[in-house]
């Protein structure tokens, strides 16, 4: 019987290739559950999960919530905008108060990198990182690589380019770790101001020209420009960004091969992707969302089965 090597899912960096494979195999079974007439299993019926979101989220939060409900867990939701955090309570106090209500698992999103790692050293519950600042977003990387595996059969040997705001993106970092652990070839592409200075040390290729990047790759994972995290101007204007790094249907059609287009959402239509590209047959963006629920069910199930 296999089990995960970790008690918490804090980042892809901390887990092994075998862990990822186990999560994928379990997610295959949950995807099957999600296609039944009754999309629910009783596995986590004695578990309570708190979704603690210190930062805004739609997709991730709904996806986690649905995954928890499909596993029959009891859930409580917490968002910082309507809570005592505004009154000056510390993170640890807030979470300890939640735990005093006998909660077994915490799904947390926080704007500070390392916040879930800090929590994991101080509290007994299992923690799932749903995004910590610009650091990691492990379940997103798992569902992205799971979607690639679903489309191509395997991830190993595939050429994947991550395009856009690499500097501020937790999705990019988690994806790089996950893709490398699974044996894919990874490239990043974006304006030089939005590429981290030492990105090459992670063993990825760097390309500044989006057309060359698309010609090289099998899969393009396009990221959103995270204006909310940018304290200064990294490029002259959105219009200029879109002119040099935006992808449209015409560009996709002019490539000499079929590539797959992914996006972790939310899409800024007309900036990184035009509508005709986002809605084209190249895109597996909605498959990613569907797979998100199965992947999160697998993560929660596997963590819960570790006592």
């Amino acid at each position, binding site marked *: 019987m296999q089990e995960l090597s970790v008690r918490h899912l804090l980042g892809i960096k901390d887990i092994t290739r075998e862990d990822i494979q186990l999560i994928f*195999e379990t997610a295959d*079974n949950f995807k*099957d559950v999600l296609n039944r007439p009754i999309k629910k*299993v009783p*596995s986590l019926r*004695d578990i309570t999960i708190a979704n603690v979101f210190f930062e805004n989220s739609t997709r991730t939060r709904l996806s986690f919530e649905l995954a928890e409900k499909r596993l029959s867990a009891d859930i409580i939701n917490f968002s910082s905008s309507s809570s005592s955090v505004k009154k000056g309570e510390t993170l640890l106090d807030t979470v300890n108060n939640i735990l005093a209500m006998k909660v077994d698992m915490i799904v947390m999103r926080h704007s500070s990198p390392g916040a879930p790692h800090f929590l994991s050293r101080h509290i007994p519950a299992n923690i799932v990182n749903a995004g910590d600042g610009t650091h990691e977003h492990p379940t997103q990387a798992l569902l992205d690589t799971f979607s690639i595996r679903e489309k191509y059969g395997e991830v190993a040997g595939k050429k994947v380019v991550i395009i856009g705001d690499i500097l501020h993106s937790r999705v990019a970092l988690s994806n790089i770790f996950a893709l490398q652990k699974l044996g894919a070839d990874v490239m990043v592409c974006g304006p030089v101001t939005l590429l981290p200075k030492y990105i090459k040390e992670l063993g990825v290729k760097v390309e500044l020209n989006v057309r060359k990047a698309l010609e090289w790759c099998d899969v393009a994972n396009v990221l959103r420009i995270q204006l909310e995290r940018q304290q200064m101007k990294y490029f002259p204007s959105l219009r200029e960004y879109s002119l040099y790094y935006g992808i449209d249907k015409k560009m996709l059609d002019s490539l000499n091969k079929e590539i797959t287009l992914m996006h972790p959402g939310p899409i800024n239509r007309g900036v990184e992707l035009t509508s005709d590209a986002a809605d084209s047959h190249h895109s597996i963006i909605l498959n990613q969302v569907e797979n998100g629920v199965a992947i999160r069910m697998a993560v929660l199930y596997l963590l819960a*089965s570790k006592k």
Partner: protein
Amino acid sequence: MQKRLIVNHQLLEIMVKRLCHQLIESHGDFSNSVILGLQPRGIYVAERVQNTLATIIGKSVPTGFLDTTFHRDDFRRRETPLTANATSIDFVIEDKNVILVDDVLYTGRSVRAAMDAMIAYGRPAKVELLVLIDRLYTRHLPIEPTYVGRRVNSLQSQRVLVEWQDHEKAEDSIWLINKSEE
């Protein structure tokens, strides 16, 4: 090591044939019946029953595999985590006569989980249970098989093992083993 052969391959063949004839008695031409093998080991029995029925009645009865992992009642209560297997049911079970198939019936808990898992696919008209080995006086739940290969008296410290030739074993056989000596 005490490993006692309780059914050899000739007896096992006769046993499966007899079970198939019993199935034919109550299901006729199987026009409204389906077979569900329980993962992980009941699927081999289900395949064998399907093949034997095909040679007798000349048609293939729809057969699927049902995984019960997510419906088990010992999740988080046992030492080792449970690994899920594939469920593959490419037919509708609504209003069908379902024959659940497993190799060994012991506490009855897997069968309870299987019935829960099965209900997620629809409401069958009738559900029956076929097992090769029924371990007597070991039930934790009020569950009894409809078709039985053989009833066996066994101790809690023992395990019944069914081996299949087409699944990496020398020949079809059923063994009684002492758990401590495995």
